[in-house]
């Protein structure tokens, strides 16, 4: 069984078996993070480049560390100080990196579909680190790994994704992945931040947080992008918190052993209360650790193999 793709562009293209393969491969990778010598020889001589047109702490450093732990060399293109400022096109930037011998590029870009375009231009493998509103597959994979590690399975779990679903590539990838793996997914948020026809993805839509959280096994809290308030999509941050903030009282509406996830960075006190973020149900720090393991697994599956893919 192998990943029969050159790239990882989204969870839409993956089968449940492929998702399981990635999650299973991340398990031995996680063990490496506990070692004294966090270095494997597996991807020695391979070069991994990160090309991030949008800001990131977690995703970019997570990929860089994953590549280094696997023994690969890394290269990070700081777009803000690159020739992109001189107007160099996206395609030229990418091809320039490729001809220097880069084997894999991780791209984050503001336009949906940017990673697909890049994958067509390059012979190198491409991983989508987040494209516009479309997908953020590695975040969803690490979320699923975290849930599966704690709950044993994804099948039949009640997972609530709460917040700004409309603008969230994290939500979209999570929905696609969790539904494929047999979870029951509920989305909840203000109507102005909820896509129409979201049920077509196989989820149940709620506008009341209290209703959505009843009996939940997992709660995934999305970051509120504060700039959306300027566009009049919700009246005030205080009101957002009142209706859609995850407080300890609301966590009690879910099951006793509910998990609380957040992709980060958090707006403490807005979409998530600090006591919940730091509380017993929170697995937010483990998500970050699992993220490195999942990305190591992806690098192995995309780069570790032979010529014919």
């Amino acid at each position, binding site marked *: 069984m192998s990943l029969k793709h050159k790239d990882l562009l989204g969870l839409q293209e993956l089968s449940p078996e492929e998702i399981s393969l990635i999650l299973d491969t991340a398990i031995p990778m996680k063990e490496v993070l506990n*070692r004294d*010598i966090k270095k494997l*020889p597996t991807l020695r001589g391979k070069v991994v480049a990160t090309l991030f047109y949008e800001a990131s702490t977690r995703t970019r450093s997570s990929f860089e560390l994953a590549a280094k732990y696997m023994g690969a060399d890394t290269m990070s293109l700081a777009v803000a100080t690159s020739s992109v400022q001189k107007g160099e096109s996206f395609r030229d930037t990418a091809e320039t990196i490729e001809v220097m011998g880069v084997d894999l590029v991780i791209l984050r870009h503001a336009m949906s579909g940017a990673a697909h375009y890049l994958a067509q231009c390059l012979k190198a493998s491409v991983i989508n680190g987040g494209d516009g509103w479309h997908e953020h597959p590695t975040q969803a994979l690490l979320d699923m790994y975290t849930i599966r590690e704690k709950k044993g399975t994804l099948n039949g779990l009640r997972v609530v994704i709460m917040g700004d679903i409309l603008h969230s590539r994290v939500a979209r990838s999570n929905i696609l992945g969790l539904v494929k793996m047999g979870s029951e997914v509920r989305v909840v948020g203000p109507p102005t931040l909820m896509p129409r026809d979201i049920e077509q993805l196989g989820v149940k839509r709620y506008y009341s947080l209290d209703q959505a959280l009843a009996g939940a096994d997992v709660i995934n809290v999305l970051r509120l992008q504060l700039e959306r308030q300027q566009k009049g999509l919700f009246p005030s941050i205080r009101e957002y918190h009142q209706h859609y903030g995850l407080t300890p009282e609301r966590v009690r509406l879910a099951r006793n052993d509910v998990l609380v996830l957040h992709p980060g960075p958090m707006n403490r006190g807005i979409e998530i209360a600090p006591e919940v973020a730091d509380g017993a149900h929170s697995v937010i720090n483990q998500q970050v650790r699992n993220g490195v393991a999942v990305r190591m697994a992806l690098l*192995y*599956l995309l780069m570790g*193999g*032979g010529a*014919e893919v």
Partner: protein
Amino acid sequence: MENGKTKARIMDAAKMQRTITRIAHEIIERNKGIRDLVLVGIRRRGVPLAERIGHSIEKIEGMAAPIGILDITLYRDDLTMLSPQPIVRQTQLPFDLNDKHVVLVDDVLFSGRTVRAALEALIDLGRPKTIQLAVLIDRGHRELPIRADYVGKSVPTSLTEQVKVKVKEFDEIDEVTIETLEQ
């Protein structure tokens, strides 16, 4: 998994067990006991063999030696040539390796590359005092200067043949056969 015709059966279940018992005695003899001794089975079939050797050791000495599992997939030297990539499984070494006498256990010693990978993996994980190698079958054709300390049976083979070790844990039967590879 049969990709060749069975040419000969060189061990049945009883012979396998007697061989394992003998190897266990040799390990105890050479190490003058089992102090600081650990057994590390190389996935996959080295693992049940390590467990059986451990069981024999416990029967003889009245005490058990710790047993660990080593997956060497990420240390292989041929990964870029394999498609699809081999599945990676967990390494489980529930003990500190420093200053221990590690006995690596594998089913068949052939080119020596698996053992080379295992040595590299072990050294990344700690600093054993000694590393020894126990194999059920040594079939010759070494490509690297690697040798086993404990050998169940030396079997001369040709390169058109394959030695197949079957263990009850994975294959429902204990036996060792030589197969000719389908041309």
